[in-house]
């Protein structure tokens, strides 16, 4: 809650920030000792861009998906390729993502994994900007229901 009087806090500071919406994934079935790929469908609201997983400048924060250790082991994460876009605040084009993007994760189940339902938790961290301002890095949690067969 703002400690400032209403005359100070409102329009000048309040901006609609970037929102990364993640479509809840369907249950993922994996055979013991086998692999399966999850495609996470996400979407960044219009007017914003986020750095890709391989930003063009070292000081930029990359898009990153991490999974909390669980019954499945993520063996490969495939990010969308960023497109190069020039902004008024950047000297050279930046590698960014906009709009709808998919992030794929290839999981592997251990041969001795217990059969039955389980849950995996992932976190997508992103940092977005609009044409003249940047917003603090945000993290979106993803819950994945898994069925080990």
């Amino acid at each position, binding site marked *: 809650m703002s400690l400032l009087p209403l005359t100070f806090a409102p329009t000048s*500071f309040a901006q609609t920030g970037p929102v990364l919406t993640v479509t809840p994934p369907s249950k993922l079935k994996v055979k013991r000792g086998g692999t399966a790929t999850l495609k996470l469908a996400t979407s960044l609201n219009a007017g914003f861009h986020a750095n890709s997983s391989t930003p063009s400048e070292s000081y930029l924060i990359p898009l990153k998906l991490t999974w909390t250790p669980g019954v499945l082991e993520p063996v490969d994460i495939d990010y969308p390729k960023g497109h190069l876009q020039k902004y008024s605040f950047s000297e050279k084009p930046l590698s960014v993502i906009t709009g709808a993007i998919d992030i794929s994760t290839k999981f592997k189940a251990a041969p001795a994994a217990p059969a039955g339902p389980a849950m995996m938790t992932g976190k997508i961290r992103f940092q977005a900007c609009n044409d003249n301002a940047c917003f603090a890095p945000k993290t979106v949690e993803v819950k994945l229901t898994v069925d080990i067969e």
Partner: protein
Amino acid sequence: MSVSQVLRVAAAAALLALAACSPNRTVSAQSVRPNKDRQTAPDFVLKDSLGTPVKLSDFKGKVVLLDFWATWCGPCKIEIPWFIEFERKNKDKGLVVLGVSMDEDGWTSVKPYVKELGINYRIMVGDSKIEQQYGGIDALPTTLLIDREGKIASVHVGVASKQDFEDAIEKLLQTNTASRQPGLVPPAAYVRAN
């Protein structure tokens, strides 16, 4: 038009021209709020890179440019060289530039960045308290100009124009100087009064 009217118009034009050229020219800074609309800037104490506490209210009597920024913020990187210049050009006139970094990892990222960009003004690392005090600093850069009375005269969210900053700084430095010296009448006021 009578001779006296012509002379009066000519005198006014000359004064306006003088005002535009003078170091104390009256500037148009649209982002600067009228005095009556200004709120007192919330006071804070943060440590600079040397561990020295920096308290905002200690700068009362000065014009303060308070910049919230982060190393990962591209637009902030555009403005920082301007602020370096403002500090260099105006510190003797009563301007203080303060930068508050909102980097999560604090000095780890900030110290090398400050060195790389050659920042000549005081940098602190912000915390959730100052973020809350200033109404939630969501977008960066967010830059405030605080007048000599410690009141917020303007707020810029996102990159603003360098000229706008320069005009606003000049106006705040000038206005307060003028108000403290009763004998000094700004040229534009003189024209209006005559």
